[in-house]
């Protein structure tokens, strides 16, 4: 079984120096949800259910650092779509659609959302474009019937839900699917010999134009700091005053 894992480079979410402002020279990492997807693909391969794991990302040459990290985790080879434009989720989904046509994976596993954009759209759009089944916000994956179907547990607003989907399919990962392994030194050294293929959208045969334009970015209004209370009695009195009690 071949698994395609799309991943995105994002500013390190643990590195915010001032709330609301990105660090002046942000450290870039693989989107945490995509890291979980990579880890899941590795585990599926480790239990003998997959033979090849291919990573794909879209960006300028600078994202090669994250590609090497993915290869160091254990991804077999990676594709970088050379495009440094500010794309929107639909454009990303269309590009990934072309990669799926080229690579013909049995399953695409990717993060449910990127922690910088928080849109949570790409996986579902990709599934719609391909006409493939989808399982979103997944916290457990099991393959059934000789790997022709996947049974997925999903984290929804109402609790856990289980669906079974035919392959090929798109699966988006949620937080509790697994805990990703850290990049190891042997992994880093092996990664140097792994293939990174660079393709432009033209070479891929897809033309996309993002239709979302960002006009401005601002800080949300800051909540004013409140007051300390010294006791339960004082707290209850204040809440009474606020008429919430």
């Amino acid at each position: 079984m071949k698994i395609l894992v799309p991943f995105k480079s994002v500013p390190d979410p643990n590195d915010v120096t001032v709330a609301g402002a990105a660090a002046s020279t942000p450290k870039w990492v693989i989107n945490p949800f995509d890291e979980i997807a990579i880890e899941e693909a590795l585990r599926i391969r480790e239990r003998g259910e997959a033979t090849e794991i291919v990573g794909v990302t879209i960006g300028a040459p600078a994202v090669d650092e994250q590609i090497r990290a993915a290869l160091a985790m254990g991804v077999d080879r990676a594709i970088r779509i050379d495009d440094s434009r500010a794309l929107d989720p639909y454009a990303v989904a269309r590009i990934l659609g072309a990669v799926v046509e080229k690579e013909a994976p049995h399953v695409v596993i990717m993060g449910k959302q990127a922690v910088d954009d928080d849109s949570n759209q790409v996986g579902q759009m990709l599934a719609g474009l391909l006409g493939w089944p989808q399982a979103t916000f997944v916290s457990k994956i099991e393959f059934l019937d000789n790997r022709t179907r996947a049974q997925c547990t999903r984290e929804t607003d109402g609790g856990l839900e289980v669906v079974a989907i035919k392959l090929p399919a798109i699966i988006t990962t949620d937080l509790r699917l697994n805990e990703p392994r850290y990049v190891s030194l042997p992994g880093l050294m092996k990664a140097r010999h792994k293939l990174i293929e660079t393709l432009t959208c033209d070479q891929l045969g897809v033309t996309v134009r993002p239709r979302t334009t960002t006009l401005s970015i601002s800080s949300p209004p800051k909540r004013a700091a409140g007051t300390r209370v010294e006791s339960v009695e004082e707290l209850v009195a204040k809440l009474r005053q606020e008429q919430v009690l």
Partner: protein
Amino acid sequence: MDFAWSDQQRELLDAVGRFATQQLNYDVIKNDREGIFNHEAWKKCGDFGIQGLLVPTDYGGLGTDPLTTVAVLERLGYACKDNGLLFSINAHMWTAVIPLVYNGTEAQKKKYLPGLCNGTLIGGNAMSEPNSGSDAFALATTAIKKGSRYLLNGSKIFVTNGPIADLLVVFATADKTRGSDAISAFLVEKNSPGMNVARKLEKMGLRTSPMAEVFFENCEVPEENLLGKEGGGAFLFTRSMTWERGCILASAVGSMQRLLEMCIRYANERKQGGHSIGKFQLVASKIVDMKLRVESSRQMLYHYAWLSGHRKAVYLEAAMTKLHISDCWVKCCEDAIQIHGGYGYMTEYEVERELRDAIASKLYSGTSEIQRNIVASMLGL
């Protein structure tokens, strides 16, 4: 001279820093107080590849060159606060892994190195005895050949990793009267019949690194576990000790850097008399001295490693590196406590533990006095 790291080295160092910061710094105060070895952290280091540095890839190692190796260990010392864990890793690498790499037969290397590299096997050595420390080769532990086995008799002290080791490199003599020529090294697996790992020894520092006395009473060692040649033990010991002297304090350079940064932060934040204490020259001066020690230690370390990587003789440089870094480390720790004042004395601030850990560096791998003797003799005195 190119003092810059390559992109690849930088990638490795960044990965080490991130790994150690996120994975190794938990429960250190508690483990230090109770003398507990962090097995889980050891395994993580094994998975990460630390124990396999320097070992050829054929045997499951990373095959890194000495300079990259010490840089990784330095970064590890910077990012990991558990000096005891690092001490156990170092003991494992220099006293068990290196002797096997240089003196092991193919069969021995294939049998032990992969496990030693990935952390599933823990190694150490047993050299010092109650009556022979600095006088290293005055061994009383004997190894007498009987048929296809050697029988070991004697007692070893200060065996780092003793309580947890799967494999010990044990030095014993065939004839106490013949001095160093009669010494051989043996690979002794744990639970060998006649081997008794006795009580755990309580230490001043490095308390998360377990240490024990080990007794041998007609301990049977199969002849295929002779490491190197019969009578070649002293040479084997000296060669691996040279590696040890050069490399064992690489992580200390990282620890010193961490202490330096802690002290700068504290000196800028702590205010007395209306301004930060860093403005007092007596405080600033100590920090300057710390900085000088870090830099000079680092340069000596890298120079030693560069020479080693270029296959130059490093007996002198190894001794100087060990002597200098241990001196610097202890002094840095003393200064760090002083700069932090009363807080430096409190366990919670994790400054006092650094000094307790550092003091041993003037004792192991040859005391500072022995290192001075070596340097003096190499200078022709």
